[in-house]
């Protein structure tokens, strides 16, 4: 939902980053305001997943220039966990498995870490279970799901639903969903999209990183950006995603090449 008067949540300026000495992000500019949903599309290797990891603070990436400001704070100066407690959430493309740690314990530790950062008391096991029960409904998950080890033996769809459950619990100001649609069948895709739509509010914002238009049939973006070679080469509205789906990426790349030539 575009509302010109709303607060800027994320502001990225000329952001550059490298991994193992190879520059992947070559000057990203992006502004996301409260209430907005942005989609970032692009071919494999365009740098879109790197952008999500750099914003979340993955240690493999070195920021070499530019700025990223989240709600007035210099995001790049924060440790990964501080970014999370400040309200940045990354839904992983490949959520990790943590054998031996129950999903319930993991969620409670994460939830309490956020409360602690806000100076609030930790929540006890019973109150937390009540809260969880309510949030489970967002992703249509069964209670038994909580007693299993984090993501261990989960299907692709269950892992992605678990990411959305975490998001429902942590209520981030900015949620970055990295290829959340990949590997989902149509039913799981609908469930995940419905969950995301339910969580979208005028106070938060979302960045969906995706390869295909498919997800955007269920979550309607306010802006669509196309990334190539570490830059955003075109920005449009939801029709741009439909054009990309129909015609592929070549024409955008060709037009961008003309402009820069």
């Amino acid at each position, binding site marked *: 939902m575009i509302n010109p008067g709303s607060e800027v949540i994320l502001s990225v300026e000329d952001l550059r980053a490298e991994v193992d000495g190879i520059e992947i992000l070559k000057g990203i500019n992006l502004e996301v305001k409260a209430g907005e949903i942005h989609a970032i599309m692009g071919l494999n290797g365009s740098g879109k997943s790197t952008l999500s990891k750099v914003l*979340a*603070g*993955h*240690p*493999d990436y070195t920021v070499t220039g530019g700025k990223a400001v989240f709600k007035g704070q210099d995001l790049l100066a924060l*440790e*990964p*966990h501080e*970014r*999370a*407690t400040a309200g940045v*959430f*990354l839904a*992983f493309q490949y*959520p*990790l498995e*943590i*054998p*031996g*740690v129950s999903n319930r314990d*993991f969620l409670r*530790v*994460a939830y309490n*870490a*956020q409360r602690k*950062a806000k100076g609030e008391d930790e929540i006890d096991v019973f109150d937390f279970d009540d809260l969880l029960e309510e949030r489970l409904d967002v992703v249509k998950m069964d209670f038994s799901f909580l007693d299993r*080890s*984090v993501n261990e033996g989960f299907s692709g769809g269950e892992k992605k639903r678990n990411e959305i459950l*975490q998001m429902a619990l*942590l209520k981030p100001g900015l949620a970055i969903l990295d290829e959340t649609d990949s590997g989902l069948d149509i039913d799981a895709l609908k469930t995940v999209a419905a969950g995301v739509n339910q969580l979208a509010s005028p106070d938060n914002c979302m960045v969906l990183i995706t390869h295909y238009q498919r997800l955007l049939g269920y979550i309607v973006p306010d802006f669509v950006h196309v990334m190539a070679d570490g830059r955003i080469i075109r920005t449009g509205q939801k029709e741009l995603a439909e054009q990309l789906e129909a015609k592929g990426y070549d024409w955008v790349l060709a037009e961008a090449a003309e402009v820069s030539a």
Partner: protein
Amino acid sequence: MSMQVSNGSGTQLSRRDAYLRSHLTNLTPSPDPLGLDDLRHTAQALVKEQTFPSTKDEEWRFTDLSAMLDLDFHLSLDQQPALSPLDVADVVLPEAAQSRITLVNGRYVAGLSALGDLPKGFIIGSLANLLQDPQLRPRLSQYLAQSQGSNETFAALNTAGFQDAAVIWIPKDERIEFPIHLLNLALPGSAPTLALPRCLVIAEAHSQLTLVEEFRGIGQGDYFTNAVTELYLADGAQVRHTRLQREGPATFHIGRTAVAQAQNSEYAGCAIAFGARLARHNWHIHQNGPQTQTQVHGLAVAQGTQVADLHSSVHFTQPHGSADQLHKCIVDDRAHSVFNGKIFVPRQAQQTNANQLNRNLLLSDRAKVDTKPQLEIIADNVKCAHGATVSQLQPDEIFYLQSRGIDQSQAQRLLIYGFAMEIVEKIPVESVRQRLSERLKQV
């Protein structure tokens, strides 16, 4: 005493030769108060022939016992240790409030044990007491020190000198609803103390038993626990055995668990080791009948300069047997873990199903892991897999937790906890799981 040579290595050699013999001199008085003189003499003769092991011995290649040579261990003469039930209050298990046998320094202490009324036919208690019953003596002697491998040096040293033993005998078709807790307390004296705790478990046909065998150190002094536990499972018996080793920081712990399984029996073992300066667990299972199931899981946590060594073996002899082993080690600081797991599948053991995996988590650059999973298969129609992994905490896993607001050190602790809990969750007694869970949060 043999002649001492002045150069260092010569002195050490003679010390090695004489060390075990010197330990025998202060063991059992003759005649033996337990009346087991024949058993004692045979064991003593075995030990006398042995040189104290060095890293040149294949079985001790990775674990160096040399530090023991600097210490002269003696059996504690204290018949009634200065311990009150209050001292063990936080060690006892609520599930075993009426089924606890306590040995202090290898001797049965009635005041620290709690044995409620047992149904007829159950035998639980002190070997020294039970041997006084002329009907029981021959029955017990049939099993005592009769397990395979009893002539191994340290097993024989125990047999030569043990002062008492815990006995658990479950009659045919019977089961005990609650677990039995065998609490072996190590109470070091002012001089280096030797203890020879022993346990004998007989599960008759189709009986069921849950046993928690715990080794717990109280105090800081030099100590040598040399323990032997023998378990005999008759046809269709089911035994769930949890072994907890939480010895004191100056303790050398050498423990043998010998399991003999008849057909259709199920042995589910889980061994958790936290304690001791140096700990070696020898865990040997013989499947003597077909369709026999074995689980030998374990967790060792080694920190500081601790050494945690597991040598296990599963001997299949008949068709349709199965064995499952997952042994995990967490190794920090300058600690050292050793795993040597052997599985033998001879020709007649067709249709065997065996899985063995040793997983090691290295938390420090100076920590050390030696691992040697060994399968020896002669039968041609079997399903067997084995392997070992050595890894550090994965940066991607830490990042995943950080991205949810959990700081790096808590993320590391959570991952270590998860790694360990996969084993702890296999333990069938809830209070044991809970205590270990709390303890693991401190690692």
